[in-house]
């Protein structure tokens, strides 16, 4: 029997304290200031979180990490928590020093020397070391030994291109199953964050529908818009189920159905959020555009919907 798909009291308290922290230290205005300054990382905020003991969050369990990720996803907080989720599978990262994982890399090996490239490695600027997978074996590399090109992407989050030209690597115990577990843990964290992001974008949009007047009435009274709002609400409720199920039982099929749903739900929510905001939604002055940019990157990170459908079908034998 699977654990209940409902938050425990402790998890509810955790969500409350994460919300308090986010309200006080990491509102959306913090992300805007970071973006304006061109910063893709927020080491000061991460230091605060680690001081509060949140580096051990992923070791508590994925359901706990998911609760916090959802809260932080609401205000687009810049943390390396996705990489922390994967690091925790290897029992690392509690001190805040996470591993960056080159999940989308192509590498070859010559003894203990690695060659290859990886595009868009998440948290490469915040990490203490790099993890790669080659020849059915996991390796750790010192980031000083590889070529790291930080990227400025639309979501202003820490990511870099990696080029490795014969750097020496240390084997990490663990084969493809461990690598997959790292990847799936990161995926669950990403999904939880996406759930928070879509929830916040939806709530902003719903508030706008109730406040904006045209033709002498609130635009939220129009049935055409009401039905679209209901469809978004539906997508978000289903996403919440997927996140809760995958966090409690992160088997490949469950993680895949969660990520595929979160990808589609988040893109749909943010596209609709911009449209339903009308003119103001197109402006940089309004925050809703940040959500669309985050959505685009998140849905392309740790597996597209097609990738996850493919894996789901393979797991089910067709």
């Amino acid at each position: 029997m699977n654990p209940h798909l409902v938050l425990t009291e402790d998890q509810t308290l955790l969500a409350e304290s994460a919300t308090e922290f986010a309200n006080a230290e990491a509102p959306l205005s913090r992300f805007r200031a970071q973006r304006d300054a061109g910063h893709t990382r927020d080491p000061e905020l991460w230091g605060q979180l680690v001081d509060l003991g949140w580096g051990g969050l992923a070791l508590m369990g994925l359901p706990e990490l998911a609760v916090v990720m959802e809260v932080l996803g609401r205000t687009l907080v810049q943390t390396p928590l996705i990489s922390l989720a994967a690091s925790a599978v290897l029992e690392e990262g509690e001190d805040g020093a996470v591993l960056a994982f080159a999940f989308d890399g192509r590498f070859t090996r010559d003894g203990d020397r690695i060659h290859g490239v990886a595009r868009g490695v998440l948290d490469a600027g915040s990490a203490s070391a790099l993890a790669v997978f080659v020849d059915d074996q996991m390796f750790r590399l010192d980031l000083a030994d590889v070529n790291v090109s930080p990227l400025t992407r639309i979501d202003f989050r820490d990511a870099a291109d990696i080029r490795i030209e014969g750097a020496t690597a240390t084997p990490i115990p663990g084969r493809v199953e461990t690598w997959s577990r790292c990847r799936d843990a990161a995926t669950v964290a990403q999904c939880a964050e996406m759930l928070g992001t879509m929830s916040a974008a939806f709530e902003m949009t719903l508030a706008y529908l109730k406040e904006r007047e045209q033709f002498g009435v609130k635009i939220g009274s129009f049935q055409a818009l009401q039905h679209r709002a209901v469809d978004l609400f539906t997508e978000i409720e289903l996403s919440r189920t997927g996140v809760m199920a995958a966090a409690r039982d992160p088997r490949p099929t469950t993680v895949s159905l969660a990520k595929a749903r979160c990808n589609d739900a988040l893109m749909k929510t943010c596209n609709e959020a911009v449209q339903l905001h009308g003119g103001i939604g197109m402006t940089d002055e309004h925050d809703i555009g940040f959500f669309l940019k985050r959505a685009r990157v998140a849905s392309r990170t740790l597996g597209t919907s097609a990738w996850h459908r493919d894996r789901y079908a393979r797991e089910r034998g067709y």
Partner: protein
Amino acid sequence: MLAKGYTAPTWPKAYGGAELSMAEYRIFKEELTRLGLPLPLVGFGLVMIGPILLAAGSDAQKQEHLPKIVRGEIRWCQGYSEPNAGSDLASLGTRAVVDGQELVVNGQKIWTSHADKADWIFCLVRTRTEGKKQAGITFVLIDMETPGISTRPIELISGASPFCEVFFEDVRVPMSHIIGEMHDGWRVAKALLAHERGMVGESVAAGGARAPILSTFNLRDYAIEKVGLSNGELSDPLLRHQIAQSEMDQELMRLTIRRANDRLRVGHQPGPESSIFKIVGTELNMRRWQLAVEIGGLDGLGWEGPEYTDIELAMTRQWLRSRGNAIEGGTSEVQRNIVARHVLGLPK
């Protein structure tokens, strides 16, 4: 089951129930599922009129009807919809006029499931035409043997159906068969409408009613049979993705129902997730059978005849039947109106 009150597990013992709490009832249902047993009693008597009688019936009405429902002795049908009162149910026009100690009923009901086999019908009738349309409706129980009642089955696009039309011509009903107050029937019925929608959604979402021959039918096995595997993957990559999407959606829906039940089990109020069951469950079911006939290709076009397998004939008719899912029990459009208003708080 009957001796222990398990045919109506949550009803008072006085009427033959077992007085289980909702938490105990869920455990009872789970145990039945575990043992592979069906619920001992189903039907409109148990799930619709019984709860209405318990909430709004007089002592005499409860004594007369509830024990018979518990014992499975009589069948009930529901007379709500009319040809001109579907989504806008409150505009119903079947007239009931007081004549001495009786109501005289004239009019027509439609979409009445199993009316041709039912012993009694619970009906909404119009007893007042002036004022707000909701305020002139009365809830009344009518014996189907009463002179002046006739029924006619409705054939659906799938070729069969449980639905009937019911015609009332000077049907005389004792005033003692009114539930609650005269003209107050809308309030009596409304309490159970949401319940009905939840049930339809949950049932459809859990896989939906289907012809017995299709009980083990699934898209994956059917697709493997029709298009085959190469290197362990379905030979049609687009179809493979569509089936994966359908299976993932179904699984997510099952998990969402479980999430709702888990909430109740730990004593929380029903969450907003339950309001989407009918919309999502029916749409997924329709998409599943649509995909089934697409996998069938030319073999999924048969109406009858030996040129098609029994499974494929049943599958094609199930696809046709599934089109009604998003209409019966409250259309998806009405469901969206309700969620928009009552869950999202959007203005009128």
